[in-house]
């Protein structure tokens, strides 16, 4: 077991109950998608996992220990973090962005350089072309690839992704999603991925956790959910990708 969250709760200072008793586990190498509409508490849940937001109730175990046993910074250096809108440091080159966490951990220069080059190749960028560029000189898809490389810099067991592919055009998003799945298979890290896009969850997650108003309404594999939504809300979330898939099928049949 890589991660387990038990009765995770967050009540903000203004009294809003954003997350209300959420429990789940993530096995080694597994990809869990948390899905729900805006304001359902999915991003708050994700940020509690690496203590960007401190929970007001419940507990989180990571790699066999309670996360509160570590300093928050030390915890975050062990967990990869990819955020919406890439979050790259605009004043640092691609190589410097990827090297941030290794430098915080005090790696020597040769080890950092080798690691940076390997990661640039792994996310399908070119060392020769992209290593010394600044984020502003890259496309949106390239920036998100650098963000994933940065999150993987210290070979974490767990990656957290907050709407990581949300801001990209559909073609780029598709390429990045399949590359991400391939990378996960190759490197074997576990991932928790927050998204509001059911199609994305169905395509790249091993398991899906559906949240509504701060609570878990359904957990299951993509196949489980498609066979038995078990809840009107989950049904609604599945309706759109299903309709789209059927419409495309009909169009293709009509042309044939």
């Amino acid at each position, binding site marked *: 077991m890589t991660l387990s969250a038990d009765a995770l709760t967050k009540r903000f200072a203004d009294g809003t109950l954003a997350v209300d008793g959420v429990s789940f586990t993530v096995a080694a190498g597994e990809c869990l998608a948390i899905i729900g509409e805006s304001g359902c508490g999915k991003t708050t849940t994700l940020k509690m996992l690496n203590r960007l937001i401190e929970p007001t109730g419940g507990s989180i175990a990571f790699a066999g220990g309670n996360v509160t046993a570590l300093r928050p910074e030390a915890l975050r250096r062990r967990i990869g973090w990819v955020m919406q809108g890439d979050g790259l*440091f605009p004043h640092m080159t691609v190589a410097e962005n990827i090297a941030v966490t290794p430098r*915080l951990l005090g790696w020597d220069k040769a080890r950092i350089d080798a690691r940076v080059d390997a990661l640039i190749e792994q996310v399908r960028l070119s060392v020769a072309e992209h290593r010394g560029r600044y984020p502003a000189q890259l496309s949106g898809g390239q920036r998100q690839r650098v963000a994933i490389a940065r999150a993987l810099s210290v070979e974490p067991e767990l990656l957290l992704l907050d709407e990581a592919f949300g801001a990209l055009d559909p073609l780029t998003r598709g390429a990045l999603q399949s590359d991400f799945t391939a990378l996960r298979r190759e490197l074997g890290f576990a991932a928790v991925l927050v998204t509001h896009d059911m199609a994305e969850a169905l395509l790249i997650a091993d398991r899906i956790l559906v949240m509504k108003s701060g609570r878990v309404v359904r957990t299951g594999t993509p196949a489980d959910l498609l066979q038995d939504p078990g809840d009107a809300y989950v049904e609604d979330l599945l309706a759109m990708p299903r309709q789209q898939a059927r419409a495309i099928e009909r169009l293709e049949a009509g042309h044939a």
Partner: protein
Amino acid sequence: MPDRLDEAVASLPAYLGGHMQLVLSGLVVSVLIAVPLGILAARNRTLAGPVLGIASTLQTIPSLALLALMVPILGGRIGFAPAFIALTLYGILPILRNTVVGLQGVDPVVREAARGTGMTPLQSLRQVELPLALPTIIAGLRTATVWIVGTATLATPVGATSLGNYIFSGLQTRDWTTVVFGCLIAAGLAFLLDQAIRLAELAARERKRAPAFAGIAIAAVLAMGAALPLVTGTSAARGIGAGEGEVMAGIEGRTVVIGAKGFTEQYILAALLERVLEDAGADVEVRENLGSTIAFDALRSGEIDVYVDYTGTIWATVMEREEGAGRYDMFVRMAGWLREEHGILALGRLGFENAYGYAVRRDWAEVNGIATIGDLSGRSVRVGGDPEFFVRAEWTRSRDAYGLQDVRTRPMDSTFMYGALRDGEVDAVSAYTTDGRISDYDLVVLDDPLQILPPYDAVMLISPDAARNPALAGTLSVLLNAIPAETMRRANAMVDLDGATPGEAAAWLYGEVVVSTD
């Protein structure tokens, strides 16, 4: 003209060096205060409001007033300290404001990314937020630099040596070569410092060496400029008695600091006192261009040992007396009050008075039949005068006594008022009765039958510390009652009309009043 330029160039090491010392120390301390304060304020919004509010309020105080206010706040200290503090306060706002704005302008996504990659708050500040805010902070630093270089020229009236010495002296003696020279040097300095900072920033951002070297080279040259006064040995000394408790005797080999306010007569008298004291073997230093009340504060605190003031000024401005008094009565009461209240020794009268008087053109007076101040009553005349005059009691009292309510006042620098009167831009001015231009421009001083305008006898005042050394008073007593008004007027005219330097006029005056009495 070439003489004037030569003289200006000769003073350059001292003036530029003094200016650089003020600017560099003011800037460094501004940064040391403003950047940490800005970082705190950017992180704490409840702090940001008051901090920026206070800094902005300081900025709205006119720079000359802020400089002058520092003198009484520091208990009468003049010179580097009050100027340095005022310039530092002045430099804080642009740096502080830009630090806050720059840090608050960092994208929240980037700040969260810094936390998400495992940076501590301090690491986030140093590696992400400050580098991203740096261009904005540097822009604030450049603004502060240009402001401080300009404002430092106003440090002259509080007794700090700066490029303002050219401007203030040149303005008072109508020596435009010197004024323009001072302005050009100050502008050049602002430009060079601004470029040095720009190049250093460019080098830091682009990680290039060439601009870094250029920036460092400019900074090094400027720092050497700041060290000039140390090399040439013109660093400021305190007064003769400062910090020494024992009664001293003798004057030979001692350093005496002479003060002077910022107008021609004061420059000449300071140079005359200097000559007399040097004859007695003293080392003399002159602090010119002091503001009117600043000179008195500096004397009281022992920053200067001696200067010449005027009975009416002390009476109205320092003693804050509303009522008038006769010439001798005023002197005796003033001397007693100064000795009792402040320990200041009023050595005695130089023999002339430099009073305020209403001067008009002779032809205009004859055509309009005007002989006394009261004859101006009921006419819509324009009266020019130095700004100090119109806040003094003699203006309000003469206005009320002679019915001058319809008069339109036009405050202006005293340098320009005689020319304005001659050219018909004003009809009367609050003239200084010893000014050489009164006879040269064919002006007449109107009678004051009600004796509203008080006497302004020139008197030598000696600081409490220096008064313990009888040799100083003894040496200067050669000047008592030695200078008739006509002689002083001629010395002033040499400078204001004939283009002589104050030193040359003082040499002539020395020949007239000291040598002839020997």
